[in-house]
């Protein structure tokens, strides 16, 4: 079946350490101001910098607030005709941690409360969406949800789709990344020669996609998804999987690499990712596009990052400005064009990457819509 419908990203509502809404988050990004704060209570006896949502209430209440906010921006979106696609790495894991660390048992919690599906169920019941489906592919989770949303709309299977990327800071994840030796104990420095790891973070991004061209929307031009087939935690050393995903996205969008103005890199700040992603970008795109990572400001929001960074990329297109690559002094790859301050320019096409544990890769291209 040939793709027919164009796919638009119409509206979004987001929260993360860098701000309580997308406008605040984008302003923080433009200032290049890290929102990472030192936190205790995650790794025993260690203070570790994390991307924690300021003054956070219950995570699921925040989720509901963001869905409510999105629906207020999209009065044309009918929940009973809309599917919700969730991308999450940990789901309701923090609820299980709270019970287990508090009571030493899981008898007083149901699997419905802490599974990945818990996010879709909470939102589905509260807002009456037609159906829901949850992807859990580590840090590519919500990018994979966006790819599927693109299929549903382009094949005319749904007119409207809500994509939710959501992950809460869990002790399991923070301890795990710390034990793997890839959690930085200082604010992360993506693409810098001195980088030494990620700042684990939390975030929620709720996106409305549809076949309707509305004011202030961008087009999802195409997506690419690939697997490294190499290692559970280490990316393919030649970046084969990353390049395959980016190439597929370009092909799906019908664009040449030279068309891309700005690459929102995965840019985790780990030694391996940034070196390999830099080399992959250089091979495919040369030195022309601006390349940034938002994770120095927001931290790495794990399964939420694909949706959150798609919203950030859309903000760049809509506002014609590219945030700086914060905390960057000496780039690992001097060929790439990393802006060190907010750069006003015409942003027509953005490619946004997400790579994850297990060697999953996803790339999404967003494009500006010009008046007919």
């Amino acid at each position: 079946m040939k793709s027919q419908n164009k796919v638009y990203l119409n509206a979004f509502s987001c929260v993360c350490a860098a701000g309580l809404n997308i406008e605040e988050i984008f302003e923080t990004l433009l200032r290049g101001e890290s929102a990472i704060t030192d936190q205790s209570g995650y790794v025993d006896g260690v203070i570790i910098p994390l991307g924690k949502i300021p003054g956070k209430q219950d995570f699921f209440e925040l989720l509901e607030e963001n869905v409510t906010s999105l629906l207020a921006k999209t009065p044309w979106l009918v929940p009973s005709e809309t599917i919700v696609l969730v991308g999450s790495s940990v789901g309701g894991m923090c609820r299980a941690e709270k019970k287990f660390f508090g009571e030493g048992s899981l008898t007083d919690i149901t699997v419905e409360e802490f599974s990945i599906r818990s996010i879709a169920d909470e939102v589905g019941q509260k807002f009456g969406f037609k159906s829901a489906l949850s992807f859990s592919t580590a840090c590519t989770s919500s990018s994979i949800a966006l790819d599927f949303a693109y299929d549903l709309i382009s094949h005319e299977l749904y007119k409207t789709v809500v994509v939710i990327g959501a992950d809460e800071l869990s002790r399991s994840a923070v301890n795990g990344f710390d034990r793997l030796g890839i959690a930085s104990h200082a604010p992360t420095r993506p693409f810098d020669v001195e980088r030494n790891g990620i700042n684990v973070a939390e975030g929620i991004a709720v996106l409305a996609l549809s076949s309707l061209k509305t004011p202030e929307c961008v087009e999802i031009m195409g997506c690419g998804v690939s697997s490294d087939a190499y290692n559970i935690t280490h990316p393919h050393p030649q970046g084969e999987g990353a390049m395959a995903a980016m190439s597929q996205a370009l092909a799906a969008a019908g664009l040449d690499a030279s068309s891309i103005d700005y690459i929102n890199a995965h840019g985790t700040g780990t030694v391996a990712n940034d070196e390999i992603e830099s080399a992959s970008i250089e091979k495919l795109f040369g030195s022309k596009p601006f390349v940034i990572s938002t994770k120095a400001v927001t931290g790495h929001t794990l399964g939420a990052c694909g949706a959150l960074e798609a919203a950030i990329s859309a903000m760049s297109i809509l506002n014609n400005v590219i945030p700086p690559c914060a905390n960057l002094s000496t780039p690992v790859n001097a060929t790439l064009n990393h802006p060190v301050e907010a750069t006003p320019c015409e942003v027509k096409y953005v490619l946004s990457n997400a790579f994850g544990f297990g060697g999953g890769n996803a790339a999404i291209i967003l494009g500006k819509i010009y008046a007919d």
Partner: protein
Amino acid sequence: MQINLEILSFAHVEDPEKCTTLNEKTVVSDMMLRRRLTRNARIALYLTDQIGDFSSPVVIGNAYGEVVETFDILRSIAAGETVSPTAFQNSVHNTPASYLSIVGQNKGYITTVSDLYETSASVLKVGAVKSLKFETLLLIVTDSIDFERVSDLNRCDIALKECGIALQVRHTTKKPTMRLSGKSYVGYSPSIWPMLEIVEKLRETKSGPAVIAIEI
């Protein structure tokens, strides 16, 4: 809207406690890699090997994730011990997908859905939509809930602690030859039911193509 899938091949494995005939040494020759496999990964690899297709795009579902590794992390933190890096890297829901990719050198589309009791229904939906793009797909659902605190959580009387089903499918315009009735299977995790019903109907099918309509 419906999308019709032709089922080309299937495989099924289950055990009340632990599947013991998963042919790991044949399927994964690298001993170090084999030792690291999770239970869900072992089941998924066995099913894929039974079908003999390590190259098609894959949609894999598991309802509960990697419970052994996840609980190991929780227990370590509660005890003030350090978390095992291997347990952590194997605790993500897409662990079986990753091992399928590595063992089969499959560099294409491999994704993981996790929708608790709706998991195999979601696998079928994602597979149906992706069949519009890919020639053939492998749809897999696995559940392994054999961990020490399973009695804390098992409130729907799941008797089979390990179960896995794989279907090799492709998009078709042929008319459906089977319909799902939404049948329940006592002792099985509800996450498995729709794909288990397909397997049951496939075993009853005498000849001709097996086609099922998936409501998206």
